[in-house]
Structure formats: C-alpha cells, structure tokens
C-alpha cells in the first residue's frame, strides 16, 4: 500500500506539472542541474494537454543504392540521390551517423558540390541561426537546411544538411583567383598564388600583421562562432584573396585535404585568439545589439520555418517553446560574446619589428633632394641592386640614361616618375648586350603613383625577392601606374612589364621582342589606348589573370602562342583592336569574359578560343559586335563549357558597363 501511494502521488504530481506549466517555463533553465534532455523525456510521457499537430513539410533526400543496398560504415560508394528537382549519382561516404555527399562536377546540387548530413536535434537550429546572422552581416557561408533522409526506402530521421567548403565553393563566392591555400598546393592551382598565401600567413603569424586578415568578416565569424559554439577548426575556413593579399574567413565545415597544410585555417585560428580580433568582435557585438530587433525577427522566422521539422511525436507548442529558448540563449551569446573563453588568447608581440636602418646607397645620396632622388640628364652606371627605402620617391629627369650592368636592379619602395620626352627620352639599357640586368621594381602600398613618359627600355629580366618576385624588367606591385609614349623591347625575363594589384594605364606605347610575354596584368585593372604589341620572338602578347582590362585601338601582331590571353575570371573590353598573324589571337579560359566591338582578326590560326583549362572550372564567354574575320584558319573555337553571343550593330554601353568595364 505504501509503495503504491509512494509511486502514485509522484506520478500524479508529474502529470499535473508537465500538463499545466507553460511551455516557455518548461523549456527554460531548470534548477538543481536538471537537463533539458531529461525534461524533454518527461514531457513526452507526462504532458497530456490537448494540442494541434502541425503539418510536417520537410525537404526529403532519398539515397538509393546501385545494386545491393550497401550501408557499411566508412565505405565510399556511388549511390542514386534524389531530391526535389534533382536526380544524380553521387559519392556517399559514412562517418558514424553522418553521411557525406559529393556531387558530380558538372551537376552541383543547388550550386553545392559537397554536403554533410548530420543527425539533427533541437540544437541544430543554432546552425541555421548562425548562417542567418552571417548572411545579414555579409559573411560568406555554406548553406544549411533541415532535411529528412531516406536511405534504401528506410526513414533515417531528421538531418542537418551542411554545405562543405572546398575550392569550388571559393570559385563561386570568392573574387577571381581566390584559393583555399591547401588546395592550391595539392592540386594544379597557381603556384605563385599559393606562395603569396604562405607569405601572407607567415607575416600574420610571425609579425602580427593583422591587415592580412579581412577584419570585418573575421569579427562576424568570431561573434557568430562564439554564439553557436563553433571553433575555427570545426566550422571555419579562410581563403586567400590575391587581389588584396589577405585571408577571408567563411562559415562552414571545410573539406579536409589529406596531406596538406592549410595555412588559411592556421591563420584564422591564430587571428581569432588575438586581442585585435577580440576588440573587433566586441565592436561587432555592439553593432548587433543595436540591430537586435531585426535579428530577433529574422531568427524567429527561422524558428517558424523549422518548428514543424522537429515535431515528430512531440507537441508543436513544446517544440516552439524549445526553439524560443534556444533562440534566446543564442542571442544572449551573440550580444555578449566571450572570445577568450571561445577561442583562447594568443600572446602577440604587437610592437612592430623596427625596420632595419638602411644606409642610403651612395648613388642615391648623391641625388637626394629632400625626400626625392632626382636622377638628372646624364649617363649613370648601375652595377648592383640599389634599394630605395620607403618614403623616398625617385624621379628620372628627361634625358637620363641608366646603363644597367648584368644582374643590377633598382628597387623603389615608393613613387617612381620618369619624365622623358619625344626629343629627350629616358633610356634604360644594358651595358652588356650579352648579359641581362634584373629590373626596375616598384613596391607600392596599393595606390602608390607612378607616372612614366618617354621611356625607352630594353634588356632586363626579373628580380627574385622575399616580398614577392618581380617577374618583369619593369614591374609594379600595388601601384597606380600610367605609361605614355614609351617603347619597351627585348625583355629577357618572363615579360617586359608586369603589374600585380593596382592599376595600369598605357597610351601610345610600343612593346616587342621578348623571350616569353610582353605584358602581365595580375589582379589589377588595365586601360590601353593605341598600344602596339608585336611579337618579334615573344610567345604571348598580353597575359591577364583576374584582371579587368580595356583595349582601344590596340594591335597584336605575330605571337606564336596568344596575342591576348585571359585567365582566372578576367574581363576584357576590346574596341577597334586588330589581331593579325597570331597562333591564337584571343584566348579566354576559366570564367573569363571578353567583349569585342569593331575588332579585326586577320591571318590568325585561331581567332577566338573559348574553353576551360581543367575540370571543375567554367569556360570562357564572348560577346561580339560587328567584328571582321578574314583569312583565319579557324575564326572561333568554343568548347561545351563556354558561351558565344553575337550581337548586332555597335556594342551598347549597357553591356560593358554592366560588367564594370566603364
């Protein structure tokens, strides 16, 4: 009797408790360390209040087998995948309860190339919140959604489908040439970009150069990561953007490349632990607090969309209350992040390394006037590498002649001006026709001005440097350059002129006779008016990589490889350009676009070649208006991944300006 009463009274109490107390109180934090999971279990059995079940409308993923239904753990198999409007064979990997789906290159699933399916619980809603906040504050992120997975006809339950971050994701959302550093190392990515990524990571990790991390995106990641209890190793990826030489974080799980060193992830994990990042996260959290009303509304919408997925045999009111509690706690963590607890604290030597005191070269000291080295009209012999310290500009006056000994160079860490005229040009020539000198190299800060007129230059090659190689006899990094009425010939390195980051404007210039190329434009803008590019031995005229260029009235003549080569999502706008006697007059690959108006193609092996360079990359595209093709072996070659659009009449301004060319 005592036992019956002892059992009966508490059971009645439990029915009363769980059927009467409001759900928002039931889902709130309980005293005495009672966990939400335990309360949920009691609610399931003792909550007897009447309730309306919601209609369950959850995205369904179907995995069917090819042959016997193989479900062995760890095995990677090809299976049939079906979702609304999509049916393909996909590669399925297993890790515990999780499924990893990799979609074919040519048939991504809603633009996604790889998706991880994890068993979902009510806490999975935090992943959806995190992405909603990331989206609101402009942080790149992989998608996430709740799905019901069916495997070989069996309901596997509710899963969280998270898009994985890999190079193809970066190709889609990043700027031209952006790479996940490890994939660039391990695949056939650009070795120069991978090297630049490693260099930037070294500067960030060793010298604490925080300008090499996209601070705003990292702050958003940090606040969201702290709220969702993510770690950079788990839900963080950072790709390298060669245009600004910095890492950009993204929210999502990263596909791990075996045997690779992920410098982006290392840089991100380090940055997240620095006081600089914590300060920015605090500022970002303050901004989010000011936007709290909108954030609450957006997350409530996420709850409204997700609630029915979690219902199962639980009451909808209870699910809503649980989601409400999760939302409340997520927002609290979002508005009051604790970065030290979340990401640790790195000891960073914030005192910048003092620049070594460089004694000014005697050659420079002779011509130093204030903060400018003015090299006057005269013959000057340069027989070694002369480095001009930062803060000092260089001016070559009209009639100045630099005779460059083999291996010599002039490295300028500031502005460079050459003031030649038609009658009194600036000459830069080799002392020995048999030995190449290195180069005139300018390291800028992004908008460092360089103005060159009346230059006649020949015989240089390239300069290797720890800060990044200069791959031309006249080379600029991060500069705003204009070159007018100049002639550059006989380069003995990879190219005659190279610009990496920044802008280059050339007018009425003549370039010819190199060993490889004449002009490299890498992640920069270029404008060329009435310039002539003549091969005379050079294989390629102009190489553009991740560049936006415009050519007006330019000639490309006699290149055995390509007259104009566009790679890595470059865009070129050509008006009244002339291509004659080239192997391929114009090549556009890997997402590059070209707009042609009034151009002529004469006597080339191939006029325009549009293709992709490797699987996974997009092809090229061309929009052509009133061009003439005569006596070419083949006017155009367009592969299945490329597009060719032919317009009538002159090219409307709206076409090129829509692509940022005007």
């Amino acid at each position, binding site marked *: 009797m*005592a036992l019956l009463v*002892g059992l009966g009274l508490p059971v009645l109490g439990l029915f009363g408790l769980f059927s009467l107390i409001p759900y928002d109180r039931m889902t709130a934090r309980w005293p*005495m*360390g*009672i966990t939400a999971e335990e309360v949920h279990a009691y609610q399931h059995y003792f909550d007897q209040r009447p309730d309306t079940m919601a209609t369950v409308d959850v995205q369904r993923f179907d995995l069917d087998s090819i042959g016997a239904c193989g479900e062995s753990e760890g095995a990677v198999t090809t299976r049939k995948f079906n979702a609304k409007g999509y049916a393909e064979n996909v590669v399925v990997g297993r890790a515990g309860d999780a499924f990893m789906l990799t979609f074919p290159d040519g048939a991504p699933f809603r633009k996604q190339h790889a998706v991880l399916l994890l068993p979902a619980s009510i806490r999975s809603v935090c992943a959806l919140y995190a992405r909603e906040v990331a989206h609101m504050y402009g942080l790149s992120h992989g998608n996430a959604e709740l799905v019901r997975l069916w495997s070989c006809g069996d309901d596997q339950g509710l899963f969280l489908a998270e898009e994985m971050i890999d190079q193809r994701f970066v190709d889609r959302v990043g700027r031209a040439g952006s790479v996940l550093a490890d994939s660039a190392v391990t695949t056939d990515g650009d070795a120069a970009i991978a090297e630049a990524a490693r260099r930037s990571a070294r500067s960030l990790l060793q010298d604490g150069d925080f300008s090499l991390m996209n601070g705003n995106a990292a702050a958003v990641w940090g606040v969201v990561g702290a709220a969702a209890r993510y770690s950079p190793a788990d839900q963080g990826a950072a790709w390298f953007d060669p245009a600004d030489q910095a890492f950009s974080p993204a929210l999502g799980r990263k596909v791990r490349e075996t045997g690779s060193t992920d410098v982006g992830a290392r840089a991100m994990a380090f940055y997240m632990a620095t006081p600089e990042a914590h300060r920015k996260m605090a500022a970002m959290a303050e901004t989010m607090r000011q936007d709290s009303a909108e954030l609450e509304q957006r997350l409530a919408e996420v709850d409204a969309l997700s609630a029915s997925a979690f219902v199962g045999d639980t009451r909808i009111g209870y699910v809503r209350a649980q989601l409400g509690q999760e939302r409340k706690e997520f927002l609290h963590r979002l508005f009051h992040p604790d970065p030290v607890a979340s990401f640790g604290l790195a000891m960073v030597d914030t005192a910048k390394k003092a620049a070594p005191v460089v004694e000014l070269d005697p050659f420079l000291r002779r011509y130093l006037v204030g903060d400018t080295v003015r090299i006057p009209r005269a013959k000057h012999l340069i027989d070694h590498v002369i480095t001009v310290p930062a803060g000092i500009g260089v001016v070559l006056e009209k009639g100045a002649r630099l005779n460059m000994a083999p291996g010599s160079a002039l490295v300028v860490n500031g502005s460079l001006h050459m003031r030649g005229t038609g009658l009194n040009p600036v000459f830069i020539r080799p002392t020995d026709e048999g030995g190449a000198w290195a180069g005139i190299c300018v390291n800028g800060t992004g908008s460092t001005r360089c103005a060159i007129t009346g230059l006649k230059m020949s015989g240089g090659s390239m300069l290797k440097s720890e800060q990044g190689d200069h791959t031309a006899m006249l080379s600029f990094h991060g500069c705003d350059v204009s070159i007018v009425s100049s002639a550059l010939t006989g380069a003995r390195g990879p190219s005659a002129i190279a610009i990496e980051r920044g802008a280059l404007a050339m007018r009425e210039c003549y370039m010819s006779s190199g060993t490889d190329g004449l002009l490299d434009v890498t992640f920069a803008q270029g404008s060329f008016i009435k310039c002539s590019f003549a091969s005379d031995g050079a294989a390629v005229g102009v190489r553009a990589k991740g560049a936006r260029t415009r050519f007006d009235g330019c000639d490309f003549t006699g290149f055995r490889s390509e007259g104009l080569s566009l790679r890595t999502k470059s865009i070129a706008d050509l008006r009244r350009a002339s291509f004659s006697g080239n192997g391929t007059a114009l090549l556009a690959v890997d997402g590059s676009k070209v707009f042609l108006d009034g151009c002529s193609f004469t006597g080339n092996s191939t006029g325009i070649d549009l293709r992709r360079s490797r699987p996974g990359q997009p092809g090229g595209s061309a929009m052509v208006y009133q061009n003439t093709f005569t006596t070419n072996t083949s006017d155009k070659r367009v592969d299945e991944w490329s597009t060719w659009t032919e317009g009538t009449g002159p090219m409307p301004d709206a076409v090129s300006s829509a692509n940022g060319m005007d």
Partner: protein
Amino acid sequence: MGEHTERFMGSFLQGWKELVILFFLLLLAAVVLSWLANRRLRPVDRGPALSVPMFISAFGLLMLARHFHHDRWTAVIIALGLAVAGVIISKSGTRAPVLAMIMLAVLLGFGLNLSALMLFIVAFIALLLSRPAQKK
C-alpha cells in the same frame, strides 16, 4: 602510471566540485532514508543512522556511472549487477534502504537529476507510510 590509467583517473577527478556536491546530496539522502527506515522501531531494533558499507558502495557506483555515462549499456549492466547486490545485502537483514540508495546513486551518476529527485520522493513516501518490519 600508464597513459590509459592516467586518462581513467583524470575522468574520475574531472568536475570534482560537482562530485563533492553529489557526495553531500547522497549523504543527506542516505541519512534521511535511513532515519525513515529506522523510525517507529525500538532502540534495540534500530540499525545505524548511516550504513557505511551501503553509502560507500552507492558513492562508488555514482562515480562509476559518471565515468560510463556515454556508454549507457555498460552502465545499465553495472547498475543491474549492483542492484542485485543490494537485494542480497537486504536479504542479509540490514534495514538500510540499500536498493533505493543504489538506484539513486546510479541516477545521480548519469546526471538524471529529475529522475533521482522523483525516486527520492517515491522512497520517502513509501518509507514514511510503511509499517515497521517485523523482527525475524
């Protein structure tokens, strides 16, 4: 000390503050339930206010359950084995509420605090309303 042993001991000592609280909670429950079991008995029939072997066994089990709480099946087997042990102890004639204490310890060890509270209430009411056992 081997790496495995160190890890094993570390898992026991992790969260030692919580363990101290659980120790005193279990002690309180044991004292209350023992008092309930001994009440209405003549002084000569009463057992000790706290059965030390029972309490030590229960607390040891709690620590084991805390260690195995990711592996429910292992813990269930342990709990069942010790419950049987508790029954045997009770057969030996002690009046201490061995079975209830063992189950309480297992639930606390698993972190099922609400269930432990309910069990305590059930045991409390049952012992409160039960007639004193006849001396054999």
